[in-house]
């Protein structure tokens, strides 16, 4: 039913134009490691709703993070969203931490999509990341 209403657009639906963004895509080097395996996975991160402004004005990032993380008790587990959010806070965020983070998670009012699905359906912070996952963060806190 809705297919017939679709319009032709070159937009990404994320609320920014390329002219307002710094570099369309930048490869960020993995950090020198913190108690993790050699193995890494590649994650694509995109920002919408003006959120890229606190990430060096780059709406799109490809990053490498460890495949597994070592817990405090020495046990190993696959890397999850909680780790990614912390990693982003330490490695990608360029300013105003409080605009992105809230405790271990993201601030209420920021929507998260994991491979185009609402992260509320995917286990939120507990979601275990896989190689080439695409994560989108969209801020709804700006005016419309």
């Amino acid at each position: 039913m809705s297919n017939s209403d679709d319009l032709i657009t070159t937009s990404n639906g994320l609320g920014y134009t390329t002219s307002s963004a710094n570099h369309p895509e930048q490869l960020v080097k993995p950090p020198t490691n913190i108690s993790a395996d050699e193995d890494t996975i590649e994650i694509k991160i995109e920002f919408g709703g003006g959120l890229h402004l606190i990430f060096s004005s780059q709406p799109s990032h490809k990053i490498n993070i460890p495949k597994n993380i070592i817990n405090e008790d020495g046990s190993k587990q696959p890397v999850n969203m909680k780790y990614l959010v912390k990693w982003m806070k330490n490695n990608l965020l360029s300013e105003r931490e409080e605009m992105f983070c809230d405790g271990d998670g993201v601030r209420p009012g920021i929507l998260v999509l994991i491979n185009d699905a609402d992260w509320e359906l995917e286990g939120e912070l507990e979601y275990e990341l896989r190689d080439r996952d695409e994560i989108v963060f969209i801020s709804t806190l700006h005016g419309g």
Partner: protein
Amino acid sequence: MPPTPCSLCHTARALVKRPKTGQQVCKDCFFEVFETEVHNTITEGKGIFERGEKVAIGASGGKDSTVLAHVLSVLNKRHDYGLDLFLLSIDEGITGYRDDSLETVKQNQVEYGLPLKILSYNELYGWTMDKIVEQVGRRNNCTFCGVFRRQALDRGAAQLGVDHIVTGHNADDIAETVLMNIMRGDIARLGRCTAVTTQSEDTIKRSKPFKYAYEKEIVMYAYFKKLTYFSTECIYSPDAYRGHARVFLKDLEAIRPSAIVDIIHSGESFQLEQSVQKGMKAMQTCLRCGYISSNDLCKACALLEGLEAGLDRSALRQKQDSTSAAPTGHRTIPMFERYSNIGVTQPTEGIEKAIQAIEIR
């Protein structure tokens, strides 16, 4: 986690968890329920539109008004409302803020094939927000902008000869406004802020078709439909008071998503006692510009007089009971007249402009 099937069609994979109901729905079912709910808001009771009505969509280029322009175009066709739709944008004259979003509106004009009218503060008041901020400073300039925008929308609509203005205010915005009006004890506004449609004599009807649409769903809709919108934050002082209400509301929503509709429901349930209603000021028209006002002078004329007199922030305290004539040499706002049909750019003209805009990039 294994993929969850859609709770409506039971076949496709659920991609959205609806905040209002907790339902898990697939992309196509999401579009359908979202559009249907807006259609229900529009048609409930006597309905907000009349057939053949000329309707201006207050378009800022942001997510809400862009999704509104899209959904209204779709519903107008699908359900044959018979509406004549226009886009109406206000250019506050804020360098580096409105420029990009006005480009977005021009692109929307092309995408939806709707005529666009842009009215600027500079045209109407002889002042841009840049100039106002230069004179009054960064504190309190939102008051000027808010008063001027409201009147500019009405005047733009009058110039288009439209009967009705629709805005993209969503459920979150309305719940915020309810909270703000309770906190500052604004009884008069509390009474009307939850109405889908407001109209008083001599004003153009205003409606909020997204009254029950959650911000989360509007953003998801724009994302899945890949709509062209522009997110930005005003470079001048943000509306701090609303900001607090907004953060508080988002925290509530995180605990209990239905909090937003619940607050709207509370706002709707408030009823003023007759004796209180009688004590409120009656509306009249501004002696200087003819715009609706509860005083001899409307707020915009009073603010403008202060600006013209070269006042700083004290322009905010300009009296509204002065004489009808402006001091000599002051610029004033043109008389407010409805149905003075002038100056609409046609869609084709818009396409040319939009193409030029794209090529510049």
